[in-house]
């Protein structure tokens, strides 16, 4: 079966047992890879009785059928686990080089179970698997670890955790290739709980292509479209993802000061334009990516990758900070500690509001850029107030009696789009299977950018249809696995045709979206089994009851309730948000139905 390597690598850290076995072909066809396959495997491996930071939790690394084929942005991979931040199913995915290298080593899936007695790293060189003592690396930061293990972009790739993961911060990331991250939901803490410092891969086998001529044509067409779109050929390469700052701010959807406002007076100072003008050294690309959105930025103190839009927003507008140099430095610290920048920034913003209101005794205040670096260091090493903040905003705010000031969904901090100014985005956050996340579908295209066409961002009726389509499409893309920015210039039908060319299995556009729907329902089933329901599909009270005070979204709150009702019906879920048996049967998941 071309497209898939056809092999699962299964490692038990407790016993150091290593197994390889064939990938189940039916599961592969049903879920493709990446996020969908990860969710399906997690269903069998980790039940509700398992605590996220216990040895019984697993890390499932997955590539997809397009990974390492050379198709544009086919560098990505996923990790799936039970999230220590949210308790939900968690998929985080990342670009760079590691995913490509892992697939070339001959595997679709790596399952890591158990817990090593002492710090360890795993080395995978094709079919040779070895364990190495990592005591000398434990405590070291990400860049130092990555360098020490011999990172070489096209040959040998390092994935590791930093101090935040070792210290079990619930917002700890897994980092790969130095500064790329599987960031959200705390997968770094799961890796740390296993005493697993790093996984190094080297591979030499490019995956086979069933129909090289068709594949070549799809490469040609995709390149043409990516070059034609100003978004993928000009905006992202020139300004990076931070290009969105001024756009989102201009429509009054940029959450500011812990979502108290939706426009930031300092947006221009932290915009993509300012970043390019003052701090950009160069842009870089992940493997097989013609877009090149990665920034390499330099200040007096740091020189490295980033920051992304969400990061810049989290440490910027959300914290009321317009000092771009401080934001770049905060990003660099997070990368080196191995910590999610969105959750870190929004948690600090929450603490700033709590401090201003007198709920917490600290010096943190909106605009205090001078405290960012020290606060992040304290979070990574669990020192002082940082120890509380490293648990994420919901646990922190809850501990001090004000959980309503955590701008999170299911415990995961929401990114840079205010649901009051983008009604569909609010529904998307509320129903996201991993919590407040913009990568489980994003309404930015439809509600702001006009991709593929502009819709009314304040429209409520009918919004569920768009949200569901984009959630499904997003899950499909995450299962291929490729970068969602490709989708800003190229429609899903191209991905379906490319998948057909690679595998020889006919996938129509509708089939691919159906794969995404299956993945979304699979994740939902997992969460239902964990006890999640309609009560969890909500937004912070602030967004439901406090109207935006000024700007283009003035007077709006999120009208979640009617959208949610429509959403459940359209999904084929019951009023409590559980997939109905008929829907599961339609998706080939009937055997997983309970009750």
């Amino acid at each position, binding site marked *: 079966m071309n497209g898939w390597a056809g092999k699962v690598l299964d490692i038990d850290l407790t016993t150091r047992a290593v197994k390889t076995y064939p990938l189940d072909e039916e599961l592969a066809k049903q879920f493709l890879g990446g996020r969908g396959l990860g969710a399906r495997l997690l269903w069998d491996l980790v039940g509700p009785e398992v605590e996220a930071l216990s040895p019984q939790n697993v890390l499932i690394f997955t590539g997809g059928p397009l990974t390492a084929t050379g198709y544009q942005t086919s560098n990505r991979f996923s990790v799936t686990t039970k999230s220590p931040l949210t308790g939900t199913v968690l998929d985080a995915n990342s670009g760079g080089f590691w995913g490509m290298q892992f697939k070339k080593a001959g595997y679709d899936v790596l399952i890591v179970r158990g817990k090593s007695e002492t710090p360890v790293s795993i080395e995978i060189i094709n079919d040779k698997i070895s364990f190495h003592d990592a005591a000398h690396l434990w405590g070291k930061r990400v860049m130092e670890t990555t360098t020490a293990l011999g990172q070489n972009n096209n040959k040998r790739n390092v994935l590791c955790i930093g101090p935040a993961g070792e210290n079990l911060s619930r917002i700890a990331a897994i980092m790969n290739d130095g500064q790329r991250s599987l960031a959200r939901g705390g997968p770094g803490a799961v890796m740390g709980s296993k005493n697993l410092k790093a996984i190094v891969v080297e591979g030499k086998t490019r995956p086979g292509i069933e129909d090289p001529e068709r594949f070549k044509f799809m490469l040609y067409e995709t390149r*043409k479209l990516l070059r034609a779109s100003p978004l993928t050929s000009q905006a992202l390469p020139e300004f990076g993802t931070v290009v969105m700052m001024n756009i989102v701010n201009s429509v009054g959807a940029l959450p500011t000061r812990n979502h108290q406002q939706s426009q930031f007076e300092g947006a221009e100072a932290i915009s993509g334009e300012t970043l390019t003008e003052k701090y950009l050294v160069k842009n870089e690309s992940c493997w097989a990516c013609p877009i090149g959105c990665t920034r390499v930025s330099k200040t007096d103190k740091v020189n490295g990758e980033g920051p992304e839009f969400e990061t810049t927003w989290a440490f910027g507008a959300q914290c009321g900070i317009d000092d771009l140099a401080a934001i770049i430095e905060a990003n660099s610290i997070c990368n080196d500690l191995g910590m999610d920048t969105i959750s870190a920034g929004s948690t600090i913003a929450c603490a700033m509001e709590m401090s201003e209101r007198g709920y917490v005794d600290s010096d943190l205040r909106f605009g205090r850029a001078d405290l960012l670096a020290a606060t992040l260091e304290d979070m990574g090493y669990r020192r002082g107030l940082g120890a509380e903040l490293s648990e994420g905003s919901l646990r922190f705010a809850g501990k001090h009696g004000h959980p309503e000031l955590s701008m999170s969904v299911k415990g995961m901090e929401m990114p840079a789009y205010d649901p009051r100014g983008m009604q569909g985005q609010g529904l998307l956050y509320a129903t996201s299977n991993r919590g407040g996340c913009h990568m489980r579908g994003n309404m930015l295209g439809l509600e702001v950018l006009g991709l593929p*066409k502009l819709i009314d961002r304040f429209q409520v009726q*009918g919004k569920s249809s768009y949200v569901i389509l984009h959630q499904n499409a997003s899950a499909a893309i995450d299962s291929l696995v490729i970068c969602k920015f490709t989708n800003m210039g190229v429609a899903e039908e191209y991905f379906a045709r490319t998948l057909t060319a690679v595998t020889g299995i006919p996938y129509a*556009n*509708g089939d691919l979206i159906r794969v995404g729907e299956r993945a979304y329902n699979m994740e939902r089933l997992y969460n239902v089994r964990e006890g999640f329901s309609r009560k969890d599909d909500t937004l912070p009270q602030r967004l439901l009851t406090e109207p935006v005070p000024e700007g283009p979204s003035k007077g709006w709150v999120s009208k979640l309730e009617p959208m949610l009702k429509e959403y459940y019906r*359209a999904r084929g879920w019951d009023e409590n948000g559980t997939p109905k048996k008929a829907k599961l049967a339609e998706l080939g998941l009937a055997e997983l139905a309970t009750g």
Partner: protein
Amino acid sequence: MIDERIYEQFKQIGRDLYTAGMISSHGGNISMRVGDRVVIKRRGAQLGALQPHDLIETGIDKNDSGVTMASTELLAHRMIYLKTPALSIVHCHPRTAIAFSLSRDEIVPIDNEASYLLKKVPVIYEEFASGTPEMANNLASALQSYKIVMLRGHGSFATGQTLDEAFHWSSTLEESCQIALYAKLINEPFIEYRKNQEGYNKW
């Protein structure tokens, strides 16, 4: 109650279809998926002059009283929503494209815009009109892989996330067929200007 924002979209696209000459006075129909409901033009209403009461709402897969007034092509629209990711459908009668559909099984554009956007448009045929289950099924199957499909001698069905996206594909097809017709009338040797153009035939 259908939101005024949704009505405005129907009104605009209906008017534009008529003024572009892509429907007769009472021909064609358009619809939108709204959750598990479909909003569709009322039977007999003029697309070019839609009033709020000309929009009918009914279930995607369940009947209710709305079906008594819905367009005769409701079945096809429902089937498309059930079998494809479509959120909007535009069915119209683009004249030049219909003329081409009479003599070929697929329309492969020769102009740059439609080559870029559509690649290829299949032509399908059933003995009975588009209101039948057989035709609805065939249409939906074809629209799993293509954004616009021609019914031989009848008209086009296009899907999109929004009505204007589906309209975009419809008007692109008609423009492309008009260009092909003019090229045929000029009757001079075609100079291939596209790289990898054989890929479009296999799209």
